[in-house]
């Protein structure tokens, strides 16, 4: 029996040998023949490349007060992918988290849901694989609890991160100009060639205002870390890294204090107009700039607190911001609002008249109404003010003088061009001058969104007619009602520049619209001797260490085709507007001996509503430095609403009538604020920053 068993043992020997040889052969194949590929697989296993978000640059005012600051905060982020892996798909963990963060569960849910065609804000616009910040003001205790009980909160992290901080009250006062940040979308990644942060969830991109315009400079350069990780994905060591480069600091010519004062004065003016029986007065804008094109304040009403963008916006906040029910506070009315300029427009009409040989002294009749081409056009007053010069016409703001000039000019200005519909028809004389003052096109200010306003050139009229012709032809009736007759006429010859249109346009009504910023820079050009600047908010870019990266100067956009004597003539008239003209009442008691202001009022009548109150001014009249423009639609006369508001702003700039001077000696700082070694901002000598 033993021998038989021993024979069978041989089989065991053979089997064991076969098994061992199989193991050895397989090992040889794995480790020696194909080991290289496994070695690279192992390297991939062990490292993760993460993009380190750079610290975003600050936005400062002219004395170094931060409008937008960075501060470090404990940010609690939720990784959707990891939370969804919970056995119940996440709700129980999110309930725990909401309780810990003392946050409404629904709000938490809203913040981490993904945006989509049917899902609107608040929602997450970024990559679903990025941790989504849900709380940017977490306390140390909360953060510790999250970090210590990762078993309870898988996929939830609490990290110290730099977050955007809007310095108040300046943040609200300049909300539209500053813009806001939102998580980057895939389209923006492709468009701007940005490396995406798959790590921190703070990969934000400027979406409006200065944040968008200077996004590239403010953003900095993302760093990269190659990390060694273990099987659980926990970082063990840093393999190698290139540090992130913080973004540059943007110094603006905005003065935070003046911005706030301007915003405040504008709001008071609007509220006052409301109180005085103009319920339609709900919006407005004010611009303060230097005569060399630097913007000192850009106010838009209504405004909002930009902090609502941080840490996710709620549905209600989003609706309030973009909805018309609350006046669309997201709009920057100083650059995007298009309003009829009214009589402030007459400086261009006067310049055109003088440039085309109309005698300054006239005399020009100023009746209560004139009839032009079969239509009657009224002055603002029905009484006849008698013959006058152009100077007096500006001071008294006599509309009928400009009606007659406009009609005369229409008669002489190639009326044949109006016979055929031609997109290349020559620009009318008066409209050519308006274009030269920078109207009818974007100013080119360093903001991403801007409206061009309207100068009704023949070309504009042609395209306008093309656009609405079909509608007019469908609704117009030759023998129908009043509107139907107009529509019938427009259908037939809407491209024709009629005398009536020329007359209306000469006093800043009809088709004419401007933005407050355009009006300000046109007055700046008149004030500075004829140079039209492209306005700039940015003044300089400083590196994080405070070195000057680049200076930003307002480029010259053109020169007014108005002789110096003619400019001086108009300026002299604008001085008299304040001393004895339409603005005299609004500036009664103003210390004009200390500060001579030149200005023009405007009351633009709008069909079916209260007039737009406009006031454009510059000072000191002898050597103009600043321009102040205020526009408040649907509020009444220029002298009643906008002029007093501008007076308040002038008071604050120069410290008059009991106001505290924003600029010592009325001089905006010439030097830039600097950044000290410790990162602190130092105001220019002689100025006090208010941090």
């Amino acid at each position: 029996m033993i021998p038989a068993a021993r024979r069978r043992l041989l089989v065991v020997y053979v089997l064991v040998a076969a098994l061992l040889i199989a193991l050895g052969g397989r090992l040889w194949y794995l480790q020696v023949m194909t080991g290289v590929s496994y070695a690279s697989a192992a390297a991939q296993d062990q490292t993760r490349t993460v993009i380190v978000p750079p610290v975003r640059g600050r936005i400062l005012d002219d004395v170094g007060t931060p409008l937008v600051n960075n501060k470090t905060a404990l940010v609690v982020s939720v990784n959707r992918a990891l939370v969804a892996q919970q056995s119940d798909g996440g709700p129980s963990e999110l309930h725990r988290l909401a309780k810990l963060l003392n946050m409404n569960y629904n709000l938490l849910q809203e913040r981490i849901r993904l945006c989509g065609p049917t899902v609107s804000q608040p929602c997450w616009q970024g990559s679903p694989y990025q941790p989504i910040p849900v709380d940017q003001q977490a306390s140390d205790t909360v953060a510790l609890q999250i970090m210590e009980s990762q078993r309870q909160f898988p996929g939830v992290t609490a990290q110290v991160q730099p977050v955007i901080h809007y310095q108040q009250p300046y943040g609200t006062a300049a909300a539209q100009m500053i813009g806001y940040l939102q998580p980057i979308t895939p389209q923006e990644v492709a468009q701007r060639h940005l490396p995406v942060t798959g790590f921190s969830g703070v990969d934000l991109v400027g979406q409006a205002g200065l944040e968008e315009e200077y996004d590239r400079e403010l953003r900095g350069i993302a760093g990269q870390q190659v990390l060694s990780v273990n099987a659980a994905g926990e970082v063990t060591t840093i393999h190698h890294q290139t540090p992130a480069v913080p973004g540059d600091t943007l110094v603006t010519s905005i003065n935070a204090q003046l911005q706030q004062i301007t915003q405040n004065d504008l709001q008071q003016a609007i509220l006052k107009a409301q109180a005085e029986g103009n319920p339609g007065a709900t919006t407005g804008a004010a611009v303060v700039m230097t005569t060399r094109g630097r913007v000192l304040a850009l106010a838009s009403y209504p405004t909002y607190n930009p902090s609502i963008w941080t840490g996710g916006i709620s549905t209600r906040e989003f609706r309030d911001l973009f909805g018309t029910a609350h006046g669309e506070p997201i709009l920057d009315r100083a650059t995007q609002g298009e309003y009829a300029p009214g009589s402030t427009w007459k400086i261009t009409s006067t310049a055109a008249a003088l440039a085309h040989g109309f005698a300054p002294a006239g005399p020009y009749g100023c009746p209560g109404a004139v009839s032009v081409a079969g239509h009657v056009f009224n002055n603002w007053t029905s009484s006849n003010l008698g013959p006058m010069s152009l100077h007096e016409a500006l001071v008294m703001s006599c509309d009928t003088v400009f009606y007659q000039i406009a009609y005369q000019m229409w008669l002489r200005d190639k009326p044949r061009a109006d016979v055929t519909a031609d997109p290349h028809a020559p620009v009318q004389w008066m409209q050519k001058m308006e274009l030269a003052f920078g109207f009818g096109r974007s100013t080119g200010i360093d903001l991403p969104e801007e409206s061009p306003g309207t100068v009704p050139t023949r070309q504009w009229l042609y395209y306008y007619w093309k656009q609405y012709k079909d509608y007019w032809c469908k609704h117009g009736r030759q023998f129908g009602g009043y509107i139907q007759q107009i529509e019938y006429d427009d259908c037939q010859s809407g491209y024709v520049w009629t005398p009536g249109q020329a007359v209306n346009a000469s006093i800043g009504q009809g088709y004419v619209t401007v933005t407050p910023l355009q009006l300000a820079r046109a007055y700046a050009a008149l004030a500075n001797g004829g140079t039209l600047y492209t306005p700039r908010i940015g003044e300089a870019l400083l590196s994080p260490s405070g070195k000057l990266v680049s200076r930003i100067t307002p480029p010259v956009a053109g020169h007014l085709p108005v002789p110096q004597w003619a400019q001086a003539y108009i300026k002299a008239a604008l001085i008299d507007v304040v001393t004895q003209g339409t603005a005299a009442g609004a500036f009664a008691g103003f210390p004009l001996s200390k500060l001579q202001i030149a200005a023009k009022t405007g009351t633009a009548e709008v069909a079916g509503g209260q007039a737009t109150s406009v006031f454009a001014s510059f000072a000191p009249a002898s050597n103009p430095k600043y321009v102040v423009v205020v526009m408040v639609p649907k509020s009444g006369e220029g002298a009643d609403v906008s002029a007093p508001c501008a007076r308040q702003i002038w008071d604050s700039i120069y410290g008059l009538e009991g106001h505290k001077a924003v600029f010592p000696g009325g001089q905006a700082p010439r030097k830039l604020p600097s950044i000290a070694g410790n990162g602190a901002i130092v105001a220019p000598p002689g100025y006090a920053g208010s941090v």
Partner: protein
Amino acid sequence: MSFLRAGGPGSGRLAGYRGLAPVRPPVGGSSGIRFGGSPLRPRGLRQWAMAKDSPLRHVDWVLLIAVLALALIGTLLVWSATQPELAQAGLNPRTYLEKQLLNVVIGLLLMVAASLVNYRQLRLCTPLVYIAACLGLLVVLSPLGTTVNGAHSWISLPGGFQIEPSEFAKIGMILMLALILGDLRDRVPRPGPRELALALGAGAVPLVLVVLQPDLGVTILLLVLMVGVISLSGLRLRWLAGLGVAGVLGGLAAWSMHLLKPYQVQRLTAFVNPSADPRGTGYSAAQAKIAIGSGRMFGQGLFHGQLVAGNFVPEQHTDFIFSVAGEELGFVGSITIIALLAIVLVRALRIAARADDMFGLLAASGIAIWFGVQSFINIGMTIGITPVTGLPLPFVSYGGSAMFADMLAIGVLLAIHRRHRVFD
């Protein structure tokens, strides 16, 4: 030079040992002669060690050294596999090293004790070991059993100790089968249906208990052991064929009646294509393969494995210890471990071949099959040629129960070896 030679003639060898033990003529009959009475008779220790009938002179030193080498390498690998994580957690990085050293020492003591047991005592002990192991398996199924790493195959003892009875069930079953099939009464030439039935019954009890745990790896191993030992027992070939047919039918029945749990079927099939499911069943296998492959010819060096340090292979100090060897010691180190295992297997089979009775032959070859199959399945799963099951690598993986059972088996081998030495 003289300094280098200071070790003298005794270095590297045990004093007095002159290589091969002298071949002794047989004394006494072909069976029933007992060797030397109690080995610890009160002579001087030196005299005892030197004596011609001393157990030391009948030790299979090649086997013993191979086992010690495996245990040493295993202990180092366990150290390397556990120290980064322990250090990171702020614990003593040598915790597992110290525990495994203790396991080895206890195991060696058990081995020595077993090797000193004589045949009669071994036969007497066999049913006790078997019954104890089966009782242990029963306890596991009771509320006293605990689950470690998903396997419900442990008994918790007071003081934080844990015992895995299935490890002892292996040696218990081998010895029991050897006893039933090898210790034939009436001088029948080969086991008959009665012995076969008994053997099947004796095998079935632990098998069913392990299936109930359920422990797939041990089930497969016990099945192979049963088939192996029964096949070697000299049973007629037609009986073996019948057994084979019955086994196949039984397997089909198990399949069709869903006796295998879905996760077990998944485990069995996942190894065919582990990358299809990288985070599930095949994850460990895929990671182990990457770790071993990245070791290449000479490895990253002990304590320098990056994947080891990152804990990429789950259970890398127990079931997947071979992946640590593969990454840190490379092909050279892994093939050394396989060579050492080959030595153990060849020596065990040699002891089986030289055993003078069926009990010794079956016990020794059963142990050889055990180590061979378990090593193959264990190493195979780390390199993707066998399914992932919870079988440790003998002598190398971390764990007390396994180490004790393995060392006990070596002790049994040594005891069998000593027995036949007398008649060589």
